[in-house]
């Protein structure tokens, strides 16, 4: 099989691309998509470590499944928040939503 560090490097690249997206995009939906990329990078790491280090224990896969659950919940609530902000302020640009900003 392909060695473990290749998967880790791919996951690190995916995570950093997602981090760049979170930090640089102005659109709230795009930021949510970048967060999904970061969660996927973490999932690759979890499953890769499960496969290479402890394939006889199921913990890695279960952990990855829980990451799916949390990602689904986060996306649902996040998109609901974005829709509500859009309904009230007609914008999804995060810089325009400065109600709590001093």
């Amino acid at each position, binding site marked *: *099989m*392909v*060695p*473990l*560090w*290749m*998967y880790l*490097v*791919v996951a*690190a690249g*995916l*995570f950093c*691309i997602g*981090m*760049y*997206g979170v*930090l*640089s*995009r102005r*659109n709230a*939906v*795009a930021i*949510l*998509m*970048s967060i*999904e*990329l970061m969660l996927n990078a973490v*999932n*690759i790491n979890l*499953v*890769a470590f*499960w*496969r*290479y*280090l402890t*394939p*006889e224990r*199921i913990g890695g*896969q*279960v952990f*990855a*499944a*829980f990451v*799916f659950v*949390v*990602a*689904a*919940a986060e*996306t*649902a609530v996040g*998109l*609901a928040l*974005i*829709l*509500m902000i*859009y309904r009230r302020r007609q*914008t*999804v*640009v995060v*810089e325009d939503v400065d109600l709590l900003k001093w």
Partner: protein
Amino acid sequence: MEITFQSLTFLIFSVVTLGAALMVVTTRNLFHAALYLMLSLFGVAGLFILLSAPLIAGFQVVVYIGAIAILIIFAIMLTPQVMQVVGVRNNQWMLSLGLAVFFFLMLVSVVSPFMDEVGVEDWSTDFKEDNPAAVPDDTLVDFGQSIVDSQRYLLPFEIASILLMAALIGAVLLVSPPNKAKAKRQPIYDARDEMEVQQGPSEQSAAGD
């Protein structure tokens, strides 16, 4: 390194994943970004298959591509102004790009000590393939039993279900139309508002004439 079929597949899937992810964070059109996100998630599902975790790959396709990406597309379509944002990046994007590259290099430098452990002495020239222990045949059975076993993952499983329920109710409450009951209780104001709305354009058109 001898290029086997598996490593070639890994290369294709990782290039698809990373390339589509780059398009997600750089594309101007948000709808295209959502489609690239689906492609990237599909590449990650392929990586899961290569890691002999078909169940997780199935979750990836069903939950991420089937539910989350579709939800994001719905959100994009429900907020029409979203697709025509003038500037894609904010004014700190150079800083965040530098930070992301720095973080990537840092992660790679941390990952590289692992190469000794996985059997690569000099990874630039001498490159051995890794052969981890085989996956047990009853992995699926074990997975299913472990999440309903009170000694193992039953408690996180139940907490996850409560979390999903709370997220579902919260999302429905957040996006439900505001104050429908109150509007029914005060029909007079509603009628007056509707009259004003109806009169507004006609007056304007009369003034225009």
